[in-house]
């Protein structure tokens, strides 16, 4: 008699639990975020002559110098593509985020290759993971210098495993240097919400936005920031172009 009651109780309890979980899941569905399929695209241009970018002499590190033997590397403070597009500009939403934007989950790669950082500028969502890779035949010591996040530096001998990191606070921008090779420099731009980084044509895309009004900020390592307001609707991506003036 007592055993039967126990089974009944267990069955009822399980059914109740399932019902609760079901309602919870359905409830989540009901109160889910508004659609975030809208996006902003655009092109970044440079108005004027870019500054002279000096060639980098890597003779101290023969394994890297050899890679660039026929194609010397230059500094990358302003990189202009063949069509006049400005590369390495990070565009992000500085105002108007609803907080429901999907987090960027793609694990980015920060490669140390030929004694350069590839990419030179990397956009990141807060808490978005990135892998630090050493593809060189020499040791590197990566040293990001944040102000709003905790600072660290790590040595990576050749052939060592990539390691995984993330930044917990937004910060525009974190300079990254190599403690062994003084010429190695790059930036990590940590923002909340979606972002885009311009390519060699100056084109960028910020996706994952809900329809609404936003302020977009474009950041360039030498020229600083610019902002523009934009209204985003579902369907057709909104277009915003930025033009930086050469100093």
């Amino acid at each position, binding site marked *: 008699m007592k055993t039967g009651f126990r089974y009944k109780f267990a069955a009822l309890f399980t059914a109740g639990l399932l019902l609760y979980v079901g309602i919870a899941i359905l409830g989540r569905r009901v109160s889910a975020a508004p659609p975030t399929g809208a996006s902003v695209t655009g092109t970044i241009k440079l108005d004027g002559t870019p500054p002279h970018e*000096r060639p980098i002499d*890597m*003779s*101290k590190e023969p394994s890297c110098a050899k890679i660039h033997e026929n194609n010397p590397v230059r*500094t990358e403070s302003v990189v202009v593509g063949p069509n006049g597009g400005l590369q390495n500009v990070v565009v992000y939403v500085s105002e108007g985020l609803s907080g429901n934007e999907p987090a960027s989950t793609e694990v980015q790669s920060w490669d140390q290759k030929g004694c350069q950082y590839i990419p030179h500028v990397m956009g990141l969502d807060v808490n978005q993971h990135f892998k630090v890779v050493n593809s060189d035949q020499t040791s590197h010591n990566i040293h990001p210098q944040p102000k709003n996040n905790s600072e660290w530096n790590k040595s990576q001998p050749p052939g060592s495993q990539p390691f995984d990191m993330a930044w917990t606070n937004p910060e525009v921008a974190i300079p990254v240097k190599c403690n062994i090779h*003084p010429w190695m420099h790059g930036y990590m731009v940590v923002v909340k919400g979606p972002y885009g980084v311009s390519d060699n044509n100056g084109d960028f895309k910020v996706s994952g936005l809900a329809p609404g009004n936003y302020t977009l900020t474009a950041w360039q390592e030498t020229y600083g920031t610019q902002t523009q307001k934009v209204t985003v609707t579902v369907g057709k991506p909104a277009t915003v172009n930025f033009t930086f003036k050469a100093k």
Partner: protein
Amino acid sequence: MAKLLAVTIIVIAIASAVPIVMHTWVAPVDISTHGPLIDQQMSETMAEAGISFLAAQLILAIFIWKFSGRSKDAKIERFPGGSMGLVLAAFLLVGTEVLALGAFGTKAWAKVYFTAPAADSMPIQVQAGQFAFYFRYPGPDGKFGPLHPDKIDEANQNFFGLDPANDPDSKDDIVTAEMAIPVNKEIHLLMHSKDLGHSFYVRELRVQQDFVPGLDLSLHFTANKIGKYEIVCTQLCGLGHYNMRAYLEVMSQSDFDSWLKQQAANQ
């Protein structure tokens, strides 16, 4: 047993002297005008220290051989004149030897440090910083522009902190990562450190000079053999110390001129 020890000591002493007397390990090629003096000083020191070493080992072996068979009750002989005489004799002998080495060495030392560089020597500034050397040539005006440490910007290759926009003397300064020099031309090296202690060492040049933070040091030398040599840091300076080096290229005057022109175009 003791006699065996005496023989072993002699064998070890002679065996360790053989490669040095036979010049089994030769010094790296010397490419400087002051190098022969340093090499001569090294071999004099080696000869003197070597002879003293062999003599000491021989005396030690003789004593072991001679007095090993003594009975426990044998009287201990005293050194003539007592211990005071012995100490004085040793003190005078070693003191004279060290002083003599120093006196003969002044030649080599003074040639680099106590004489001024020739008026027509070529100035090159070298800056050591974790973990690379950078060099600066004054350009056609022959003047180095002032340094502004706050303007150091490694991302843009401004390692020295130059401000060519405001300092006319800096406009034509040439900054390089490699040190090229013309052969048979006296070089006046002006050295400073950006951060902490480093050292400038080129073994073929017979030059080794520490960088001391806060001090402007200078030395001068003339290289007389064309070639490519390594400049290394020989003062432990941190995690990248093992990798802190640059290259010295001794070139003919015409090669040097075109090299410098090329470097100037890269600024």
